């Protein structure tokens, strides 16, 4: 009753009309904006992205590495003996940062700049094999001068020479290497010798983890199935993946991890897992019952490599540092601290002088038998990589 009679006011219709017009205009603009989107290819070539080297005049170097990957002085964590010795000897000021925590994350960080041939303000970055292969394939890395790397030429381990993504050893120089194999905690379970046991033994059910790193987990599974991780067919990959899927679905595998399995293995929440040798050596130093196992069927050998990205302006200084770390005495000093596999021949003899116990540790200086059954995962082109990674992620759940 109290409602006013609705006048034939043009207000409402006009407002609706205006809204409609504005709405469709916004839609049109957005649509044309979207239509103009799309990205260019990210690949660069030596011709499309030229870098200059100012090492002659600038005695500086920016070195990005992973955490806890360089020796520090005992009692003073801020001092880095081998790096300081290099600076004294060469007069090159090194700015060292530990800002790489994850290959994929770091790639996400540098991707846009390098795709557009812009500098990332780093002269050396350290990336794992497969990521090194990817950035090399994208043409984002400077070629080094082998003549300025005499120690690398002399001392690089034979098994790390001529890798498929760097046949001449002038793109990616190994910093440290490691093995991906099995580990178990002897406090909560008996010995675990094979991949088969890890995936099927009933007493391990729900107390097993595997690495989220496709190449390490799948490489071990491929080798366990009698295939060569360095050269396999898609059918063989599917067969190995099927085994993994069964282990996930049955609840045998609890989850897929990065480095974070280490604490759980030490606590005994997980009894056995796919693990990296470097982590396990550090755990074993605190509890002897945590053991690393290199299955007879094969272990995966990986390296983290030093690369000089495009537009880095101190390639010469970077080469000087790389070559310095391939002096056996320096390499031994570094290996004594980081406990990874040392990629430098002759370092073992130098280690005898530093720490005889470490010199005989096969996880730092692997014996020929271990080296013979260590494999490097096949280099994948982009299509294959995406196919395998997607299939693997379907099982991992990401």
């Amino acid at each position, binding site marked *: 009753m109290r409602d006013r009679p609705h006048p034939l006011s043009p207000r409402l219709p006009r407002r609706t009309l205006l809204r409609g017009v504005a709405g469709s205009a916004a839609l049109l603009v*957005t649509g044309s*904006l*979207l*239509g*103009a*989107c*799309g*990205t*260019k*290819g*990210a*690949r660069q070539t030596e011709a499309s992205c030229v870098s200059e080297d100012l090492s002659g005049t600038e005695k500086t170097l920016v070195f990005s590495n992973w955490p806890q990957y360089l020796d520090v002085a005992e009692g003073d964590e801020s001092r880095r003996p081998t790096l300081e010795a290099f600076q004294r000897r060469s007069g090159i000021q090194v700015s060292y940062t530990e800002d790489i925590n994850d290959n*994929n*994350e770091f*790639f*996400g960080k540098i*991707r846009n700049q390098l*795709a557009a041939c812009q500098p990332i303000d780093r002269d050396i970055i350290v990336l794992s094999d497969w990521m090194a292969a990817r950035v090399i*394939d*994208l043409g984002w890395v400077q070629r080094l001068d082998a003549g300025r790397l005499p120690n690398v030429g002399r001392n690089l381990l034979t098994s790390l020479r001529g890798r498929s993504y760097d046949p001449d050893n002038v793109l990616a120089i190994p910093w440290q290497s490691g093995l991906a194999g099995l580990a178990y905690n002897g406090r909560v379970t008996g010995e675990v010798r094979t991949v088969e046991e890890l995936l099927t033994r009933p007493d391990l059910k*729900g*107390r097993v983890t595997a690495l989220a790193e496709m190449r390490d987990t799948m490489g071990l599974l491929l080798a366990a199935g009698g295939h060569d991780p360095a050269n396999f067919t898609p059918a063989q990959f599917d067969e190995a993946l099927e085994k993994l899927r069964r282990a*996930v679905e049955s609840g045998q*595998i*609890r*989850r*897929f991890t990065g480095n*974070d399995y280490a*604490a*759980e293995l030490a*606590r*005994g*929440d997980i009894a056995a897992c796919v693990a990296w040798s470097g982590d396990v050596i550090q755990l074993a130093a605190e509890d002897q019952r945590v053991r690393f196992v290199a299955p007879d069927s094969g272990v995966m050998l990986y390296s983290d490599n030093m690369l000089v990205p495009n537009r880095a302006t101190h390639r010469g200084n970077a080469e000087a540092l790389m070559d310095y770390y391939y002096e056996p005495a320096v390499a031994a000093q570094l290996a004594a601290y980081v406990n990874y596999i040392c990629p430098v021949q002759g370092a073992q003899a130098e280690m005898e002088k530093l720490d005889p116990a470490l010199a005989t540790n096969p996880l730092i200086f692997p014996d020929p038998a271990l080296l013979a059954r260590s494999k490097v995962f096949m280099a994948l082109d*982009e*299509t294959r990589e*995406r196919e395998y*990674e*997607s299939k693997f*992620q*379907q*099982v*991992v*759940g*990401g």
Partner: protein
Amino acid sequence: MSRSGRGRVVPYLLLLPGLLWLVLFFLAPAVQLAATSLYDPAGSLTSGYAMTWSFGNYPDAVAAYGAQLGRSFGYAGLATLLALLLGYPLAYVIALRAGRWQYLLLVCVVAPMFTSFLVRTLAWKTVLSDGGAVVGLLRDLHLLAPDGRLLATPAAVVTSLTYCYLPFMVLPLYASLQRLDPRLLEAAGDLFARPAQVFRRVTLPLSMPGVVAGTLLTFIPATGDYVNAELLGTPNEYMVGNVIDAAFLVRLDYPQGAALSVLLMVAILALVIGWLRRAGPAEAG
């Protein structure tokens, strides 16, 4: 004349910084995301992506990862419900019964947020570990099988989600309960309402704005959360956030990652609008 002219301009000037911020950091990325979700799925980082209006990316993404999408809403809904059941009595006591302890209790609610989100989630790993006190107690009470565990189960993920977002539930509830006029409660009592009736007819309806705000502040971030599922769950507990993370960083399938992100945003938006319509402030209805 000049006065009224300036008066008309000032509100727009005041809006400008916020608007610029939104355009730059929300609208532009959102448009970019929507565009990416329609790129040709056959493209790649190396060869580039062409805009082909591939709406098929959406059904493809749902077909591949519908389970994780559903799980996200399930876990987040459950966590929101638990947070409401835990948070309401807590906020009620703090607002109406705590007296001089009020501020201390509020600080206690907020205190965990002084440490990083990641550290708190990692702490749950220790709390729920197989050899820990919680699992031991539950086993002794036969609520858990002798070889049962909490870590790497949905229970662990939902528990930790509830914990993480509980303060976001408690604070708005507290704010709305604190404004409650005690005279209304007294009046209800005078009119012979039993305490349960007072709560149902007076307290609860008057605190609805808090309930709405709290559930939204809990539900929205919980749906997109991936840290809890990653650290406390297994692949079987992974939520859509984990899938998007892997699509962008590991698999490098940008169109699919973007399609899932857009889907998540739209689904949340629809749920929020639905919820506001049903339970939202009366003025809006």
